[in-house]
């Protein structure tokens, strides 16, 4: 319970706590992308609610600190999350001082980070039981370190606090035991149900027992359309993010190279199709993300030479004037530009739709089957009644 009130600690200790807390929060906030804020807030709210639960011990009861648990789940984001929780407790319940906020946050967050490091070192080996044991140890260690830090802050503030500091550590021993068991159970459950939240998607291989495929979560996709002789396209992840870097290779069916160029910052690319053939566009986004798209020859203007040998991309602009700027070509180009976003969207939906289709189809089959069964049963029931 890092709830040291104001008036106890000496100014140097208060200042040191404030500096560490500020630095830790700055580091934590830097690592916290805005997309993760709801998640971090909810997890720290769980810890906040859980730390209000009374655990009976003999005639009295104790509260948990749960900083080990917060640390294991949140990582560096635990620092600002703990500061938020302490600020709320100070304002809502009058627990802990305002000036001592820095010391209190430090006493909770630094052990949280240590617990996280220890837990990950074991959990990355992928042995479930060992990981759960490590979680329990880390949970207990979080309390012990917090008690030691609080005791240290007291002892540094004046020699007269030495007895009280020792008592703080002793008083936290029961909390340590309870929290070890609670943390092991909670982290064990998370490891089984949501391992990716604890370990990150890359570290899962050892723990995953099949079933979920996190790699599917952001498949690289590529889409391209022809506007006249120039082909523009975009590479994106199925999560909707644009691919930022990668290399585009365009080949003809017989393997001839048409163009090779880097991906733009927004995931877009553009090249001149020097010939009228099925163009195979391959985007390599790194990290094993490869996407393929075939642009059918029918989309390219007739004016292009059919299937000639590979024309380098640099030479391609020379081809454009060869396209007669007649009305037909202009219409074709503008229609292609208008329709392009629609087609792009359709293509991205195709990917997500098939699961819905499958389920929907199954639903229809079940529904029709049920209807048929119901009707026949009713007829049979009615017939049975009559006889």
């Amino acid at each position, binding site marked *: *319970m890092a*709830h040291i*009130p*104001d*008036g*106890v600690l000496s*100014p140097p200790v208060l200042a040191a706590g404030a500096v560490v807390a500020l630095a830790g*929060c700055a580091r934590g*906030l830097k690592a*916290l992308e*805005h997309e993760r*804020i*709801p*998640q*971090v*807030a*909810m*997890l720290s*709210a*769980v*810890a*906040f*609610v*859980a730390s209000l*639960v009374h*655990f*009976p011990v*003999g005639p009295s009861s104790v509260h948990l600190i*749960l900083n080990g*648990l917060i640390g294991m789940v949140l990582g560096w984001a635990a620092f*600002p*999350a703990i500061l*938020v*929780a302490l600020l*709320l407790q*100070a*304002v*809502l*319940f*009058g*627990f802990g*001082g305002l*000036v001592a906020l820095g010391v209190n946050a430090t006493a909770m967050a630094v052990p949280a980070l240590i617990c996280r490091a220890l837990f990950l070192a074991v959990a990355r080996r992928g042995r479930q039981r060992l990981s759960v044991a490590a979680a329990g140890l880390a949970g207990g260690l979080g309390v012990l370190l917090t008690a030691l830090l609080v005791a240290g802050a*007291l002892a540094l503030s004046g020699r*007269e*606090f030495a*007895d*009280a500091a020792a*008592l*703080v550590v002793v008083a936290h021993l029961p909390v340590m035991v309870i929290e070890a*068991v*609670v943390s*092991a*159970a*909670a982290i*064990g*459950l*998370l490891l089984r149900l*949501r391992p990716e*939240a604890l370990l990150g998607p890359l570290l899962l291989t050892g723990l995953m027992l099949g079933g979920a495929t996190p790699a599917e979560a952001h498949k690289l996709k590529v889409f391209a359309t022809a506007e006249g002789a120039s082909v523009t396209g975009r590479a994106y992840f199925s999560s909707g993010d644009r691919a930022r870097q990668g290399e585009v290779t365009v080949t003809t069916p017989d393997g001839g190279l048409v163009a090779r160029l880097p991906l733009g910052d927004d995931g877009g690319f553009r090249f001149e199709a020097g010939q009228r053939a099925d163009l195979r566009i391959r985007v390599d986004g790194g990290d094993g993300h490869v996407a393929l798209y075939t642009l059918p020859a029918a989309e390219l203007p007739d004016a292009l030479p059919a299937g000639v040998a590979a024309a380098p991309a640099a030479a391609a602009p020379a081809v454009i004037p060869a396209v007669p700027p007649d009305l037909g070509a202009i219409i074709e180009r503008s229609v292609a530009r208008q329709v392009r976003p629609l087609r792009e969207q359709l293509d991205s939906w195709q990917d997500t739709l098939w699961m819905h289709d499958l389920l929907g189809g199954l639903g229809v089959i079940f529904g029709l089957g049920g209807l048929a069964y119901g009707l026949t049963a009713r007829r049979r029931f009615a017939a049975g009644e009559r006889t």
Partner: protein
Amino acid sequence: MSGLATIDPRVRLLATGGFALVVVGLGQPPALLAALALAVLAAVAARVRPGPTLRRLAALDGFMVFVLVLLPFSVPGEPVVTLAGHGASSEGLWRAADILLKSNAVALMVLALLGALEPVDLGHALARLRLPERFVLLFLFTVRSIALLGREYHRLRQAMRARGFIMRCDRHSWQSLGYLFGMMMVRSLDRSERTLAAMRCRGFTGRFPSLIEPRPVAARDHAFAALFLAAGLILIILEHP
């Protein structure tokens, strides 16, 4: 509501922080008593409910009871009372009283000026005081989530009670509570994904424009701030006569 409730939360926040800083630096009995009187005055002006407030202060003092009881015996000095062979020094007694006065004065002021504030308003005040935007967002989301998850916790505990669970001081109880917390985390992971999807849908890019809209400080806020500055000065003058 009292007149205090209409003061801008920013001003209240700064006033409380400044008060805490000044009080922590005090050491003379008159100044400390004046600080406590000021806090009581603020509490009366804010019309805090005496029952819950006193209970909170008692909880705070209960937390410090170790420190306070041990101090008279651990501070060297002339013994005033002797208990089981250990003398309680007057210096130690004074030190304990000093801590008691300071911590209660600050806690009472916090409860008086900020206790009645909606946590969301507090978050907005933090944003207008130019705290990092992400910190403020984390604060606001946490406030919201605590309300949600508090209800969820009670639902799950009720379900456990329905299955005959009684909280005891044993491993089984602790483990069950651990699973409960783990389950809450799993659910909140899913829930936060839905929240994020809904926010994305509304074009969330990490900022709420309404948070940084300027809001002018009214004349009465200035008056309140001036009053507080004067009070702080009086405390400092009492400290260094």
